[in-house]
């Protein structure tokens, strides 16, 4: 479980996150939604442990900042694409910590091959990462996160560059991690998609948490509408699934 108490993150004189309190349940998918600049990515980076903060942010009762003993998989929205590296090597980097120095283990190689198949990249392992399309890079990033075999996976807009088919494919694959006890935390601009997969949704705006809790409660809450300036409308399909659409006028 991730326990956040009175968390404040400052960048210079601006407060990106303001005195946040939040509990994130293990083995569930929690989705952070909110407008651009709300502080979603900063919160993800704080949970990753690289973002200095004031207050307390504990992962299984241990403060996360600069804690190098944790194994947290992270899928960034804007990765640095290494020149001259092949897709296979790129994904194998995810095994670096487990394999130690020297040659990667046989187990790692078969896991990487299997994960490349799962993400539809098998056959491209010897291609250069710089030659991949945006969607292929996103899948390579997710493959690299999967082979880390961590208990906590953080995804920053994991589907922003994917077509509909690959969105569902990748999200199903991530969702299946829950059964292995993995905690998933992601940001997602597509709230309909977020509502389809997330167990819990956290609404953030201007560095503050407006609402958090079970997906169907939060999706129908006035706070979600407020976060997007009352410019969204929530429909419920016959199946009970919510669909969130933007609208031109305020409601």
């Amino acid at each position: 479980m991730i326990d956040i108490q009175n968390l404040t993150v400052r960048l210079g004189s601006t407060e990106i996150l303001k005195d946040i309190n939040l509990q994130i349940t293990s083995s569930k998918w929690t989705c952070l939604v909110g407008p651009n600049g709300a502080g979603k990515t900063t919160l993800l980076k704080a949970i990753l442990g690289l973002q200095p903060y004031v207050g307390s942010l504990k992962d299984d009762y241990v403060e996360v900042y600069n804690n190098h003993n944790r194994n947290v998989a992270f899928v960034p929205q804007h990765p640095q694409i290494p020149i001259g590296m092949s897709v296979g090597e790129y994904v194998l980097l995810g095994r670096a910590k487990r394999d130690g120095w020297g040659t990667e283990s046989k187990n790692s190689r078969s896991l990487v091959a299997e994960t490349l198949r799962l993400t539809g990249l098998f056959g491209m392992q010897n291609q250069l990462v710089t030659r991949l399309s945006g969607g292929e890079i996103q899948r390579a990033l997710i493959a690299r996160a999967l082979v880390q075999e961590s208990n906590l996976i953080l995804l920053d807009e994991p589907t922003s560059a994917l077509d509909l088919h690959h969105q569902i494919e990748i999200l199903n694959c991530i969702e299946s991690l829950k059964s292995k006890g993995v905690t998933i935390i992601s940001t997602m601009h597509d709230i309909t998609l977020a509502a389809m997969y997330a167990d819990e949704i956290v609404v953030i705006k201007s560095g503050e948490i407006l609402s958090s809790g079970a997906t169907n409660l939060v999706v129908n809450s006035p706070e979600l509408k407020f976060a997007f300036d009352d410019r969204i409308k929530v429909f419920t399909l016959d199946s009970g699934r919510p669909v969130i659409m933007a609208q031109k006028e305020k409601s």
Partner: protein
Amino acid sequence: MVFGKRDNQELRSIWDWRITAAAALLLLFIGLLGISFGPLSLRFDQIFRTILGLPNGLTEQERGVLLDLRLPRVLLAALVGGALATSGAVYQAVFRNPLADPYLLGAASGAGLGATIAITNAHGNLYGLLPVFAFCGAILAVLVGFFISGKFFAEPNSLLLSGIAVGSFATAVQTYLQQRHSASLRPVYSWILGQLTAASWQVVAWSSIYILIAISILISISKQLDGLMLTDEEAYSLGINPNRIRIIAVVAATLATATAVAASGLIGFVGIVVPHLVRGISHRVTNRALPTIALVGASFLVLADLGARTLLSPAELPIGVITAFVGAPFFLVVLRRKRLVNQ
């Protein structure tokens, strides 16, 4: 062994250690050439007999040449070549810049200034302390650059820029000193071109301590260096502490460079050619190539020194001339054939 073959089904290993083994054999072979050829050629079989203490070995005079001249010289060339090639590769990784070179952080100009001070000093003969001055000059220049840049952790490339600025400053002071002491022009110039003539067991002893420690440290963090090709967040999530790795890498690479410069002057081109050569031939960018880069760098410099000693024998060419004269065209050929950076 097939280098660079693209097999689309197999997941290839991050590094093929057979390439390292080949590089080790290459160094052994070139090292043997290095100790046997020169104005006085020594036969392989006699060298082995002498080393193993068997009869029919080298004469007393030949033994002297082997043990007091050739062996320390070849060892020093190997150490310097390994140090420059490894630190070049590491700087390229830390600054994510394929053009980074061991001398880029001001180490070269700092060492040049230190050497010039030792040579031009009017009060007593400091020539014997030249390596100490060059070493301190190199380290000081990089340190000054580091503290001026101030934001190395936020923006590693700031160290590159301040290093270039400190380097220009040191070169200006050096030129001024030379201008004031025109008799020093020739010794300073010949030092700048680089030479291994000063090789002795004493030089080999102290430089091997620093260089071997620095190279071992760099090899031990080579896997983490790969993580520096990604963003800091990505590296951190893969279990790498990016800032710590950067600082270890820069300190160790600077130590190796400063030692190499102090022992042999400014030998150019090794630090940039050899890493790219190894990456081009192996088709891999991983820093797990560091041991191989060190071995190939060592072979390259032993071979260059062999050329420097024998091409115009008994006169000697500055080794920096050979490394650039042979290295540049060879590098261009490989560059054209392999398109190193983006295959």
